[in-house]
């Protein structure tokens, strides 16, 4: 069974390669699309199989396996899955990948000034699949260098999706994205090599397996940990993104084709917090606690600043981009709260998943609006509720999820991260941070309702009025196609389901998450300071595997 995980990564990757074969196979747009849908569904099925065979009571890394890559450098394709990874894989493979492929059909791909050529669609889809594979790789990697390799591999497809198929400023946006992300992540690599060396010193063998690194990191002094944390966060915080490293995101979102920006918003952003949980916090727990106030302060500034920016945007997609930055601030607050119950970190992971579904849905809705009415300018739209009730329904639902309406999944994440922040021990975060973040919730309500009001309810803007736009024509234009319904419905279902039954995720991830933040939480709460010196506390099941091997 353990071959399911490599299959999950390599099936999309191999299919991406097949899509680029110069055989003339992929000249027909419809058949390309159907085959791709099939492969996306197969990937989802693999993920479901994983979920079915996963032992939810067991907090250890499961379905481990290892394929040698460069053994003499200590590099291997080691994979495994815990509940956190499983949920990220499930949401990515079962929901988002098929949805993105569904959405791709509606893309009017322009390459430069020329119209879409046969084969461009296959190229677009192949980059989507490469990105999907790279993300699965990030989620299942159990070797730090492999993790880094997939982390970097997400860059190339994202750059191609934006720079080849995006809007007028696409190349600039893609390059900005690449330079931000690459510059940050080379420091992450340096940090990983450094821990690798510390581990080699201790064990006499170079290994980048997470377990070995966790064990080695416990021997590091607070100063060493401080530098390590800085290096690791350089890569992760750019991806998250945290204020003031966020400037690439609005441009990338605005320029990306909507299927591409769903990928970026819903998936690529997630590997930042995931890396923080998986690497930065367990490897440098002392430093993470020491620097939590700084990161918390920046996250708070980000929450408020990005919310204010979102408020004044005229471009709906840019507004959503800023809302992402604001929302990811909550995620960071939760991760660095280190409250005794681990509520913050659990909330952060939940929030990541919730944000992926809701923001993905919003971007797709805006994409449909753009497709029908040719603009994303808020001042030119309006009155969608009367002409496109179906679309308006989904739009309002996703907006409400993002706002954090109780009963939908955004609320759970927002509530838990803020609760965690509030309960955070003194000297780490605390009520003050929670208070500032709470203004972000209010602001989110303002800018998202502003967005919804402008697009859905207010009087029709000039893109929808005028003699050529009779109600009849508008209604035909606004009617939701079956394909569009099929891509929005799973996202909406996810939002509601996780809103009503958050325990579906929160239950299984509680123990693994507690394991990752155990050291840092113990240090922050001053419980048994001796814990700081024990690399593998008994309460942290994922780490126990290390000592068992």
């Amino acid at each position, binding site marked *: 069974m353990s071959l399911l995980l490599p299959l999950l990564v390599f099936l999309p990757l191999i299919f991406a390669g097949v899509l680029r074969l110069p055989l003339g196979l992929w000249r027909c747009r419809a058949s390309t699309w159907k085959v791709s849908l099939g492969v996306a569904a197969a990937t989802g099925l693999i993920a479901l199989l994983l979920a079915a065979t996963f032992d939810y009571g067991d907090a250890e890394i499961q379905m481990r396996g290892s394929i040698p*890559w*460069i*053994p003499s*450098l200590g590099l291997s394709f080691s994979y495994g899955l815990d509940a956190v990874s499983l949920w990220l894989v499930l949401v990515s493979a079962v929901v988002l990948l098929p949805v993105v492929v569904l959405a791709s059909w509606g893309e009017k791909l322009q390459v430069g000034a020329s119209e879409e050529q046969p084969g461009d669609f296959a190229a677009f889809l192949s980059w989507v699949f490469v990105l999907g594979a790279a993300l699965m790789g990030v989620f299942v990697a159990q070797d730090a260098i492999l993790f880094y*390799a997939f982390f970097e*591999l997400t860059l190339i497809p994202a750059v191609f999706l934006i720079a*080849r198929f995006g809007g007028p400023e696409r190349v600039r946006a893609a390059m900005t994205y690449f*330079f931000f992300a690459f510059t940050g992540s080379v420091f992450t690599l340096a940090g990983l090599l450094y821990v690798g060396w510390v581990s080699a010193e201790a064990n006499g063998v170079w290994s980048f397996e997470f377990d070995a690194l966790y064990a080695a990191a416990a021997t590091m002094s607070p100063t060493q940990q401080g530098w390590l944390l800085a290096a690791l966060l350089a890569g992760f915080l750019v991806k998250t993104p945290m204020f003031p490293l966020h400037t690439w995101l609005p441009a990338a979102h605005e320029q990306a084709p909507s299927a591409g920006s769903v990928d970026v918003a819903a998936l690529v952003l997630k590997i930042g917090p995931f890396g923080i949980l998986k690497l930065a916090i367990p490897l440098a727990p002392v430093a993470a606690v020491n620097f939590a106030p700084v990161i918390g302060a920046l996250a708070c500034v980000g929450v408020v600043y990005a919310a204010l920016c979102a408020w004044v945007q005229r471009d709906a997609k840019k507004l959503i981009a800023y809302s992402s930055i604001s929302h990811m601030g909550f995620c960071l607050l939760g991760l660095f709260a280190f409250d005794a119950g681990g509520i913050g970190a659990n909330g952060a992971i939940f929030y990541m998943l919730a944000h992926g579904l809701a923001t993905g849905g919003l971007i797709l809705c805006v994409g449909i609006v753009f497709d029908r009415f040719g603009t994303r300018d808020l001042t030119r739209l309006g009155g969608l509720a009367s002409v496109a009730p179906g679309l308006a329904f989904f739009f309002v639902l996703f907006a409400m999820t993002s706002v954090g309406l109780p009963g939908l999944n955004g609320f759970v994440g927002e509530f838990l991260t803020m609760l965690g922040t509030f309960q955070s021990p003194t000297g780490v975060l605390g009520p003050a941070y929670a208070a500032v973040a709470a203004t972000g919730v209010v602001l989110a309500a303002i800018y998202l309702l502003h967005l919804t009001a402008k697009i859905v309810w207010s009087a029709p803007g000039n893109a929808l009025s005028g003699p050529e736009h009779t109600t009849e024509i508008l209604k035909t234009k606004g009617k939701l196609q079956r394909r569009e319904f099929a891509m929005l419905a799973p996202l909406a279902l996810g939002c509601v389901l996780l809103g009503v039954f958050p325990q579906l995720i929160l239950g299984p991830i509680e123990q693994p998450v507690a394991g990752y933040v155990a050291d840092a939480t113990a240090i922050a709460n001053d419980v048994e300071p001796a814990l700081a010196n024990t690399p593998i506390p008994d309460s942290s099941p994922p780490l126990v595997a290390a000592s068992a091997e």
Partner: protein
Amino acid sequence: MEVLLQKITTLWPEITLLLGAISCLVTGLHPSRAARNLTPWVAALSMGVASLLVAFVPEPTAHPLGYDGLSAYIELAVLGVGLLLLAVAAGLPDVVKQHRRSEPAADRGRFEPADALKGEFYAFFLLSITGCLMTAGASDLVWLFLALELVSLPTYVMIATTRDSSLAQESAIKYFFLGAMSAAMFLYGFALIYGATGFTDFANISATVQMQGVTPMMTVGLVLAVLGLCFKVAAVPMHVYAADVYEGAATPVTAFLAFVPKVAGFVALMIVLGLVGWPLPKAVVTLLAVIAVLTMTLGNLLAVVQTSLKRMLAYSSIAQSGYLMLGLIAGPAAVAAATSGMAIGNGLAAILFYLPAYGLATVAAFAVVAALRTNKDADAEVETYDDLAGLAKRQPVLCGVLLIAALSLVGLPPLAGFAGKVMLGGSIAQSGIQPLSALLLFALVLNSAISAAYYLRLGLTPFFGGDAETTHPRGVPLRFVAASLAAVGVVVMGLVLGSPIATAAHDVTKHAGQVPVEAVAAAALSSE
């Protein structure tokens, strides 16, 4: 005499290349056109045979500096990349005016040997490679010096004769004079090393150094030798020639310059520093660290602002030398890691791994540039990024090759350059010379980030730039093949062959600087 004979038996690949060079001169100057056209094939054949012979060379006696198997490793690496270089360079003399004038005359029965270029180009090509291989086989300072000169001397001629442009002559002259100066410099260094120890053979020098420690004269000798060798690898402060020379030479020759002398230079540096062993004397470490940081930073910053592709690749090659310098500072693995048999942590293994990885990517990039022409200026070579813009639509394979090469040079996984950078970074992290090693690691990653700016531009302009439509490939199919093979090599080396190559590199270097006890005793005897 017996020692000499023994040495000769280890030199079969070099001897084959030498015979190949002579055969090239014969066929290249032959009155029959068919024989002349055979010349590149003769060169290829002799390189192929030489690389096969590597397997049959008897196991050499222990290397005096602990580099057991260094020459076999370098022979395979250089001959492998060298065959690709030959494929890029094949046909180069045919387009020179002198040749095009002389051929019709020769067909009419008036063959003028003085006008024929083929013989000398391929012969010099082989001779330079022979020099590179002999550098790795050196066991004596005099031998090392002669081998290094054998690398450089043919390249001066190769630059000057293969392009109908005064630029080529200019760069040959520049390269020649600066090369002569650098040769004088490292020869002076070698002389001081001899003065400090009284020996020219490595075993005795090394044993003497072990006994009497590193004397000031020895340090000065090392410093001069390092500075002189910096010319070969195009490192600061001896890098100034690179951009002009690379730009002036014909592109296939530039590719040659970017790889062969660099390998020879780094092998020579490994040997010269191996004379004192690791950890190196403080002065030398400081010198190397300053050189490394300046080289990578200056190279990258200047590469960013270039608009000419060849100048950019020249500065890129300078920057890459800066990264490689880190491996010299780190040295072989600390004892604990050496016994575990893992290549990571060994700086010299990192150099040996990085060199072919860099070579493949660089050859791929230059092969693509060499295979393209632009209509703008009467079928001239492509010069700027703009010439590449939008090419991907018409030449997806070539542009894919260029992208892979650029991504490997920037160090993106899973390509060969990434594994190389992991090795270099890992070795500098473990070198234990705090806080210098942390600073050097920082310099490495910061420079990688800077380098992304121009490598990405190189790799992505063909895909996203507006369409120039003036650029087209010109039918040198071998260059396509060479470019594609090099790109495949970069991928394979990163994904599949990384481990065996890294292990081989580690096995060659893990005992570096550890002089056998008998040698020390022998030196003690002879000095009494």
